[in-house]
């Protein structure tokens, strides 16, 4: 079958404005991923096409992009999911929104990681290590509370699908809240108050208008909006 790709291109050294590049590929399989097709464009047609990818198997979170108008990982999106008609698939690929485009599909992730760092995404405790020198144990029920949010791979698909983040990049964004949730609700961690103070700020969780774009965008199927709601309730009730 055939794939017709429309890719948002921008080279800051030669282009004043972004433009659409159109590429046709033959002998495409229904089980090819969008990343496979982007590789073929880069390797067979235009070597200047710039994109981020690393593991190509949905684990590293490098290749989040806007595919047919919705954020997804290029390596997890199959051709057959994109509406094949008469043995032709039309695919539009753009960089994720809300972050500065550096070249083609590559955006500056630094503002995203600044928000990530702001919520202290690491284990904090003053309690000495257990006497046996082994793990800090917790019950399966305590572990289950933050199980969902451990799945985040920091691909930014959620944060860059959020209109609140598009409107004002100072909003900490769903990904940082998910990462904070993973530690706030960990019974072994002792810095929940400091993280919640960051998230109770004007540009914290209150910017979330519960529209669920993040939940739809998450390639790991994390219930992002639910995690944000739990953080809002933790701030409101003073309990975690």
């Amino acid at each position, binding site marked *: 079958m055939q794939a017709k790709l429309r890719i948002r291109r921008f080279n800051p050294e030669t282009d004043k404005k972004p433009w659409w590049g159109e590429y046709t590929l033959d002998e495409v399989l229904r089980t090819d991923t969008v990343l496979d097709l982007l590789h073929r464009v880069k390797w067979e047609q235009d070597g200047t096409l710039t994109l981020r990818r690393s593991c190509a198997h949905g684990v590293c979170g490098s290749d989040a992009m806007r595919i047919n108008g919705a954020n997804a990982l290029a390596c997890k999106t199959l051709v057959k999911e994109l509406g094949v008609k008469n043995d032709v698939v039309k695919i539009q690929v753009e960089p994720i929104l809300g972050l500065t485009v550096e070249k083609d599909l590559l955006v500056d992730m630094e503002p995203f990681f600044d928000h990530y760092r702001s919520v202290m995404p690491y284990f904090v405790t003053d309690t000495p290590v257990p006497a046996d020198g*082994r*793990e800090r*144990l*917790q*019950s*399966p*029920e*305590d572990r289950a*509370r933050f199980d969902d949010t451990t799945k985040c791979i920091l691909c930014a698909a959620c944060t860059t699908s959020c209109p*609140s983040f598009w*409107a*004002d990049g*100072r909003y900490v964004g769903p990904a940082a809240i998910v990462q904070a949730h993973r530690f706030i609700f960990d*019974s072994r961690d002792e810095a*929940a*108050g400091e993280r*919640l*103070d960051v998230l*109770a*700020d*004007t540009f*914290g969780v*209150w*910017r979330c208008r519960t529209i669920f774009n993040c939940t739809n965008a998450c390639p790991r199927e994390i219930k992002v909006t639910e995690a944000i709601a739990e953080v*809002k309730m*933790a*701030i*409101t009730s*003073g*309990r*975690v």
Partner: protein
Amino acid sequence: MAAIPSKTPGKITVRRVKLERNYERAFWLFMRLSGVAMLFLAVGHMVIQHIVNSSANLTIQFVAAQWSTWGWKAFDILLLWMAIPHGIRGLFNILGDYIHNAGARRLISIVLGVFVVATVIWATFAIALFDSTRF
């Protein structure tokens, strides 16, 4: 193999955290609670004024008859206290998404805040002191 601690089987550990006081949290809570309250107040108001009693019959005499009892005055004052701050806070949230300048944001918050306080005080007095015997 290490045993899983039996300290709290089947229960989750709930901890208390001390947070700095924050007006954003108070507003967020107000928006939720006033929203629930208005589900009854605003919808009830519309049903009573415009459906049970047709809009065509909605005259000053009808309102005066309602406001001759403290129950109806209290209903409308409560609706006023919920609706005006809820609506204006919602407007401020939307404006705040797109106005990034800190000075402009402060100016808008002051203008809208004065509007809310003035409207709520003025309308509360208007309803509370309404004299039904003159209509």
